[in-house]
């Protein structure tokens, strides 16, 4: 072969590779195939769940085993990731349609629906669900009048306490009805040397911080947005709430490590008996009362989130929903599995992990008996709720608020300045 011919061969091979690549990309820039399919209602489906709060990995494995017994033609392969990784995992796996069933947080349906990440399931939802399900739960994954998922149960942050510390400090649980009361008891606990920092919060740069702030914002009578959908957390109530948060750090009542904590860290700090109080999701009581992982299993208790100066105690709406991946090729089988997950008897069975979605469960005395404290606390918390803005670019808005809240908590900016900055940046995002 001559040099010329060799060069030609080499160029031909390289050109072939390049052509192959172009063919692979198809005509779409992102390479995403258009749409999924219903499938034949059988086969192996992949489900994406999270590790924290709500149903545990073991709960899901039990539920799946029972489901597969009833539906021998469907196999469910579950994947569990941390909440902090869930959004990005759903998004990055969306084009390939890897996951047929995905667990989505209440703050994502607007984004996922408008960007075509999850499927519109409005037509699949039976009419009876609309009358039998708690309205707030049903609305979890509602966007623009359509349903993009089914809420898997009400969830909000409740107030957990260590009764032992409260009584040893000479206070009583009834003092914990207001945030002022909580601070008074915290001071007593600190003075008695029972805990160096009586309160722990999940104030790391994460969504968890927004949830804690939301409940305090509500307690101070504020809201995230006005009627035009503009962010208004730099008004009086928003600033007061943040000033209060910072003050509890300065007074040594809040564990300063809170700015690095997620919910799990708060739960662990309480379980180890280091702190007396913490806001956390309803499944936390299950863990705090489990003697194998908690040193305070006998003295852990739960109350609705305390009242603030506004006299209100709204819980943040933290429900999650089961959605179907828009590019899933087995949407019928996925729906069969979701229907099973929503079955009232299945949900009632795992009531200590997550409260059921069905109205009648909340009047079922025999069921309430199995988890009385959480049922009682939740009843109050759900009567008023505070919503995070339901906007398609919520993730970027939330990122902005997280950073500015931290700037104030870490003393880098005054609360007013931090929230002014958050509002101007976030409203610019919202206009996009």
């Amino acid at each position: 072969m001559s040099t010329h011919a060799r060069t030609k061969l080499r160029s031909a091979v390289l050109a072939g590779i390049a052509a192959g690549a172009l063919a692979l990309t198809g005509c779409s820039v992102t390479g995403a195939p258009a749409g999924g399919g219903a499938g034949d209602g059988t086969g192996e489906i992949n489900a994406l769940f999270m590790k924290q709060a709500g149903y545990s990995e073991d709960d899901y494995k039990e539920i799946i085993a029972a489901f597969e017994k009833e539906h021998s033609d469907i196999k469910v392969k579950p994947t569990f990731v941390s909440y902090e990784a869930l959004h990005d995992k759903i998004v990055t796996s969306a084009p390939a349609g890897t996951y047929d069933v995905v667990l989505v947080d209440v703050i994502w349906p607007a984004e996922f629906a408008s960007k075509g990440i999850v499927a519109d399931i409005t037509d699949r939802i039976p009419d009876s669900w609309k009358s039998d399900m708690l309205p707030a739960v049903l609305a979890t994954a509602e966007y623009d009048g359509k349903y993009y998922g089914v809420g898997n149960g009400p969830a909000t942050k409740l107030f957990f306490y260590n009764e032992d510390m409260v009584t040893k400090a000479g206070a009583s649980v009834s003092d914990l009805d207001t945030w002022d009361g909580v601070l008074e008891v915290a001071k007593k606990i600190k003075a008695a040397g029972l805990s160096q920092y009586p309160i722990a919060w999940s104030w790391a740069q994460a969504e968890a911080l927004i949830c804690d702030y939301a409940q305090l914002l509500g307690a101070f009578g504020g809201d995230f947005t006005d009627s035009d959908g503009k962010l208004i957390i730099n008004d009086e109530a928003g600033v007061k709430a943040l000033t209060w948060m910072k003050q509890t750090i300065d007074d040594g009542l809040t564990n300063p490590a809170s700015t690095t904590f997620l919910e799990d860290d708060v739960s662990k700090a309480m379980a180890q008996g280091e702190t007396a109080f913490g806001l956390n999701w309803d499944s936390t009581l299950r863990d705090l009362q489990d003697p194998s992982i908690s040193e305070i299993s006998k003295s852990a208790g739960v109350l609705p989130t305390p009242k603030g100066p506004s006299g209100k105690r709204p819980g943040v709406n933290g429900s999650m929903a089961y959605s179907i991946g828009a590019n899933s090729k087995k949407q019928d089988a996925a729906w069969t599995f979701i229907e099973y997950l929503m079955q009232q008897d299945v949900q009632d069975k795992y009531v200590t992990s997550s409260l059921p979605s069905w109205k009648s469960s909340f009047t079922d005395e025999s069921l309430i008996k199995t988890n009385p404290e959480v049922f009682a606390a939740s009843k109050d918390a759900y009567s008023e709720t505070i919503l995070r803005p339901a906007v398609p670019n919520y993730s970027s808005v939330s990122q902005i608020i997280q950073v500015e809240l931290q700037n104030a908590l870490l003393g880098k900016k005054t609360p007013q300045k931090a929230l002014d900055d958050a509002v101007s940046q976030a409203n610019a995002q919202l206009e996009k």
Partner: protein
Amino acid sequence: MAGSIAAAPPRKRKRRNGERRLAFWLLLPAILAVFGIILYPLYRTVLISLFEVKSAVAVDPPFIGLGNFQEALSSPGLWSATGRTLYFTLVSTGIELVLGFLVAWLLNKKFRGRWIVQALIILPWALPTIVNAAMWKGIYNAQYGALNGLLSQLGLIDQYQVWLADPFLSLNLVIIADAWKTTPLVAIFLLAGLTAIPSEIYEAARVDRAGPIRSFFSMTLPLLAPSIALVLVLRTVEAIKVFDIIYAMTRGGPANGTQTISYYAYVTAFSEQNYGLGSAIALIVLLIVLVLSTVYLRLMRRSEMSML
């Protein structure tokens, strides 16, 4: 090249042709791999950076030319992330170079059990970054971390500190974690360079009455320059791209204090689903790396000592 082949005797030419063909086929799997995991994704990144892609499943996004680059360069977030990345790169590479040299210099001395130390020193480098990050997160933990334990037992602090709560301190602590892992690599590279320096020249220097400091600056350092340059290129490029240790240790927090440019690109692309802008930022990182490595390599080629 072709001329020299033409001038060679026919038998030799044939053998050389055969060798070349073999080399080509042997290289083909590597070419395919490079194509699949580098060139193809790069091509896609360039393509996406020219469109307004705001969903992972967007099929027909609008073409906006260099709009994403314009937006990236005018965003204050990019510039502060770049500043943090440069700080991370300078400080981590600096620490690794100094510590790496000291370790290499020590390992170049003859002492009993040197082989054990050599094997041990490589251990941190062998750890996956995620394990390293989890370990350092544990060390810095405010409640049960070893750092608080050590410092309070030594009486240096009277109460436990929350190490990862301050934005700037966090960045430095992540740098330490990164340096702990990568110093061994630098040390091994420099050790290879040190072993290559013939001991005769030190003897000659001793005869000429050059002190240890003089011989370090006049002989060791210049002779080690190619190894230093090589390791500098490698480490700078890696440090500018730093992502995994940040993701595992701090997720860019607190208050964005550890958000480097690669992490910023990740958040933009995946958390905010702005793939066009995220790709543009990723390409800006690539450009910085390309410019830096070209400058380094040029400098090295100019150096007479270059062994590359």
